[in-house]
């Protein structure tokens, strides 16, 4: 089946269809990770977007039941050079094609994704349409792309936030860190082997802190990492008031990642502002941008965003560089921040803000993804820092 990818600037790429036979519109962006497509597909931060992978061969290792970052697929459409119909990996249970079909998400393959990336690099992020059900011709697809709502000003958080609050993994069954078997694990003092499900996991520590996590589209690995660090997490809807959060008297508050334009979420900015100084706060990605706004700063749209697993971030205090996993199309404007806010991390590629800290209050944030999934684990230590911050504030 032939498929089309049309951009609002009139560019049309022809390819072959895979995944669900349907037509979807959304902002097109590219991701430079060479692995981790399953995590990308299920990351709620991609809500509203059509994602193109720069690595040409996608689907090689299939899909497994353990690497989802949320309950569903959030990308609107998936663009690859060549998808692999028959995967090979000992954990794989399904092909990418079947998975996308099951989740009703269209895919297109056989297009020159490098040419597309260059187009987006030069022209910036664009609205687009992926049609793989033959319902549109090229002109119609372009027209539909032009009619799609822009990313600026759109609130996708309401689509992905949990309707009701919930207690994350009270049994401790979901949060154990997945790993591989080992004939002798020195730390455990015994071999590490697979459980009945064929998985091999690291035991969890006891709960030491209670935190409330704002769900703007939270990734499971953030929840897992929090729990692995001894946090008991109460997940709440994005519209939860500061008052309601404080009424629970948590040890700290976490602000999650999420999709869309941070500036469009003034209902969140307000509540976060009210929380400042009251409880230790740690924020990631969209949560970091929420803090930026709460501090009185501004965010702006990056030309084509940072999406991938190789973004170098420098910690300005230690001088150390971490290779980080990133997924954001907006950034906090450093010049807009008041002087009590310190920029702690910058992106070495373009100098944009990657981390903030309040000089007086127990508040810090990072723009990137210390929980990885996909991407490097170099920045995992932030979860420990959150614990330290809580300890210090007690």
């Amino acid at each position, binding site marked *: 089946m032939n498929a089309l990818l049309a951009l609002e600037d009139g560019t049309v790429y022809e390819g072959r269809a895979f995944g669900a036979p349907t037509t979807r519109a959304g902002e097109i962006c590219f991701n430079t990770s060479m692995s981790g497509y399953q995590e990308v597909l299920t990351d709620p931060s991609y809500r509203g977007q059509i994602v193109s992978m720069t690595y*040409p061969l996608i689907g090689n290792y299939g899909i497994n039941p353990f690497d989802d970052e949320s309950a569903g697929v959030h990308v609107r459409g998936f663009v690859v050079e060549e998808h692999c119909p028959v995967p090979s990996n000992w*954990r794989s249970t399904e092909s990418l094609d079947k998975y996308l079909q099951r989740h009703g998400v269209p895919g297109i393959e056989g297009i020159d994704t*490098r040419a597309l990336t260059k187009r987006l690099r030069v022209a910036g992020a664009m609205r687009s349409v992926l049609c793989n059900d033959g319902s549109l011709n090229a002109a119609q697809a372009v027209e539909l792309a032009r009619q799609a709502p822009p990313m600026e000003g759109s609130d996708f958080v309401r689509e992905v936030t949990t309707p009701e609050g919930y207690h994350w993994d009270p049994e401790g069954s979901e949060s154990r860190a997945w790993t591989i078997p080992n004939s002798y694990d020195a730390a455990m003092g015994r071999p590490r082997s697979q459980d009945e499900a064929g998985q091999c996991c690291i035991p969890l520590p006891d709960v030491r802190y209670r935190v409330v996590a704002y769900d703007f589209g939270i990734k499971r690995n953030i929840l897992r990492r929090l729990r692995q660090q001894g946090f008991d997490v109460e997940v709440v809807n994005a519209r939860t008031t500061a008052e309601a959060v404080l009424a629970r008297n948590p040890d700290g508050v976490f602000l999650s990642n999420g999709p869309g334009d941070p500036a469009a979420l003034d209902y969140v900015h307000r509540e976060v502002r009210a929380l400042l100084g009251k409880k230790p706060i740690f924020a990631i990605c969209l949560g970091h941008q929420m803090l930026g706004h709460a501090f009185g700063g501004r965010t702006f749209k990056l030309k084509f965003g940072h999406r*991938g697993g190789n973004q170098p971030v420098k910690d300005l205090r230690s001088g150390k560089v971490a290779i980080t996993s990133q997924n954001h199309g907006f950034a906090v404007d450093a010049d807009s921040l008041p002087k009590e806010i310190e920029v702690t991390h910058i992106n070495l590629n373009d100098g944009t803000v990657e981390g903030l800290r309040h000089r007086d209050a127990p508040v810090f944030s990072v723009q990137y993804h210390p929980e990885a999934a996909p991407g490097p684990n170099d920045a995992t230590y932030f979860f420990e820092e959150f614990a330290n911050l809580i300890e210090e504030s007690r």
Partner: protein
Amino acid sequence: MPRDTSIQKILLIGSGPIIIGQGCEFDYSGVQACKALKEEGYKVILVNSNPATIMTDPEFADRTYVEPITPEMVEKIIGKEKPDALLPTLGGQTALNTAMSLHRAGILEKHGVRMIGAKPDAIEKGEDRLLFKEAMIKIGLDLPKSGVAHTIEEARIIAEEIGTMPLIIRPAYTLGGTGGGIAYNKEEFETITARGLDLSPVCEVLIEESLLGWKEFEMEVMRDKADNCVIICSIENLDPMGVHTGDSITVAPIQTLTDREYQIMRDASFACIREIGVETGGSNIQFAIHPDTGRMIVIEMNPRVSRSSALASKATGFPIAKIAAKLAVGYTLDELKNDITRETPASFEPTIDYVVTKVPRFTFEKFPGSDETLTTQMKSVGEAMAIGRTFKESLQKALRSLEIKRFGLIGDGADVEVDDETLTTKLSVPNAERIFFLGQAFAKGWSVDRIFALTKIDPWFLRQIAEIVEAEQQITGNTSDHLFSLIPADQLNDDSKAAALHDFMRRMKRLGFSDRQLAVQYGIPEAHLRAGRIKYGVRPTYRLVDTCAAEFEAFTPYYYSTYGIEDEVRDNDRQKVIILGGGPNRIGQGIEFDYCCVHASFALRELGFETIMVNSNPETVSTDYDTSDKLYFEPLTLEDVLNIYERENRHDQVLGVIVQFGGQTPLNLAKGLEENGVRIIGTSPKNIELAEDRKMFAKLLDDLGLHQAPSGTATSLEEALAITAQIGYPSLVRPSFVLGGRAMQIVYSDAELTHYMKNAVEATPDRPVLVDRFLEDATEVDVDCISDGETTVIGAIMEHIEEAGIHSGDSACVIPPFSLSAAMQDRIRDAAKKLAKALNVRGLMNMQLAVKGDDLYVIEVNPRASRTAPFVSKAIGVPLPKLAAKIMAGKTLKELGFTEEVIPSHYSVKEAVFPFSKFTGVDIILGPEMKSTGEVMGIDYDLGMAFAKSQMAAGGTLPTKGNVFISVKETDRPNVVRIAKGYADLGFTLYATSGTGGVISEAGIPVNILPKLASGQRPNVIDLMKNKDMAMVINTPSGKNPREDEIKIRTAAMQNRIPIMTTLRGADAALRAIKSLQGSEVQVRALQEYHR
């Protein structure tokens, strides 16, 4: 952290001669390091015995020592130069071992030299099996069950403890896994363990649980002083565990791991480099993963830049060696810029948007009788790399880059069909051609499961190969008629027909099919296929290797082809020259030609041309993205080169293509290129061919009054016999148009000739066999000269140590000649000049001659860059290839200021280095077929000392006292007395077998007679060798079919690393060398001192 200012002078150790497991990748890393350190204002002292390297060009280091890389010699250099620091991590295992010896002997401490890059304890931990194991257990990484043995008894106990076969045996501190192997039974276990213990310099082997069939991966890691770690490249091996990674087809990036699995490996890599303590620079870490459980094992780590680093650098565009050098002097990754993007820092991980495939190149045909099974001991001599947007495209491009007359995986007209039984063996026992048999198995309809069971190659790779085969099988059915029949009748017109042809052709090209494959399938000439392809607009697009998957703008013009929708080549208005490289290294065509290509590029850049390099060999300096103005990492086939030419010549800006620097590879393309209207600059291909054509060349020599050994050209056995009846025996027979003396042989009788004609070659009117009278005991001479068509200047006359008949690439030779009379030398010069004029040489010319008494015979003339060009350039201090390139661009020697031959006052000796230790069971005798992989140079004002140095550098340091064993063939006996007396006079005790010994003792020289091996009496010479009681062996082979005894003696000498001379002339030269060694201390001198 800024650069370290406490250091001013840095000693860099190179890797010495090219050998299996240590190829020209270390020239690449060394050149990068020299450039990087000089750029920072450091004084660089370099030691490397390999004259064919670019790094030993005097301009790369401040002081260049072409001296043996032994601890003794390097100590002398340290004493003389007083460096502040030693950088040991960029010269392979040789540099690392030498640095460690210097450290252990306290020499570094004594001279206040500190190691930078990696500290001794880190190297120790990374290299010592036991320490490495402890370190890995400490950080929680898994290892195979194993044990270290120092004796065969210890080994047996360990084997019992592990309890399963097969077992892997790895000797400690050897290169490329020399002496290692897999034992499937007890007998094999004993043999391999004994050999391993023998070859390990510390008499130590590791015995471990077999990981055969596990998935194999590699990670290239870099670390800086601030402990920032990055992965430059991940690599997955197509061949699972059991085949040395150097012999495996490998792919970047990793294909079959999820992100979680990959990140676990990444974290493990960092934990490993940190625990081992490699402070700064690059390391290579190998992992195995169980295909069903995911259990991950650390195989080994190289605490230095490696062959894989070179591959990773070329695969990603990240210059590992250059960055490693800068990190070693104190920079951190974030302080260094990524050259390619210029904007982003070096502290990032390259992300690539293509697939890179590396395929090893083997030369088993050179070593008949050797075991061709691929094991954990590396046997390949080179490699080709290719880049494509899919694995299928990159694999097929890599296969046609190998230059083994294959133009893809299958269907190129070169498939060799085998029966099912053979196919099963060819799949289950790893071998050089397995990849092609995989294709054949799929073509026969074998399933992925069946093939997986035989090969344990991951099903992902198998399905990719199956897809190529499926596509190949569809080609013949997809005729234009068939394609048109698919177009709805109402849409059938010229445009839709063209579109159908375009689409099908493009689909095939995207799967990596070559024009040749398509042409063979359609049964039409390749040229027609090409014309049709171009007519329908199917042309490649060129893409940038940019480290960032197009996220940022890239400035470095490093390209590969694919069939995409957008071309990224930047046009400009400069005049261009395209230089064709040599492709994968092989015996007979190696680093020397890369040296020439790189020089051509440098020279033409100096003249203001835009230089464009085309090559497929990732180990080379020529494929460094800043060697030329543009780099095309592409196969060197007519199709691929024409595509580049057409792209670059779009506005008629290409002055020409240089084919005479890359060895035989580009020369083979010359005719096809010319036929397609490509301008070849330099000596015309017609004249190059003329020199290869026996009949035309014989006439030319006649006209010039020069002589050749009587000869003839045979297209059948009958003709060959008729020729020898006329010219007599012995005769040298060989096929025409070959490099490195493939299938060349000396025959002594009709029977031998008949055998040769029937078995070794296939003589046809198109491919005649050349028959020459063989000049016994003649002195062979090589001449390199340079000509602009008017002026010809002799580069050097090289007198060979070994007599004529041994391939010139395998003989030692000396500049200037040491025994030829001045008159003979003048006759040689005159002959060279006449020939250069007659062939209208524009560039370099090499000539081989034989001198017998007063007679001078021309053996052959090659009007192109020769293997000796770098050696000559180093010996005389004039960069001949550079001058030659400028001549090709129109300059004259007068303009270039080189009109007088340089006759140096020092002696330069070139010695060849052989891979015999890798091919057990192969006799080490030399003959007309080239077998050496590399060369070294010894340089001194004293001839004996220069020869002594060359032997030292080649790994066979000559003794100054002790026992010498002499056993020579009948015909050498009259001359052996003088040699024997020489050794006796120098204080050596002589041993011999009865035949040779009789002659010696008759002459009144005391000699101890040893029993023949076959007699069963002990101790024999092999016992003495094993007991280290024999300092040297002189053993000349008795002809084409040597006696069994001889082979055993030579093999034992090699295994026990005892210097062995297989010619009397060699023994004579050694005598002279030993005299020099006894008389004075060895001095070291930099090239810059010789050429002031």
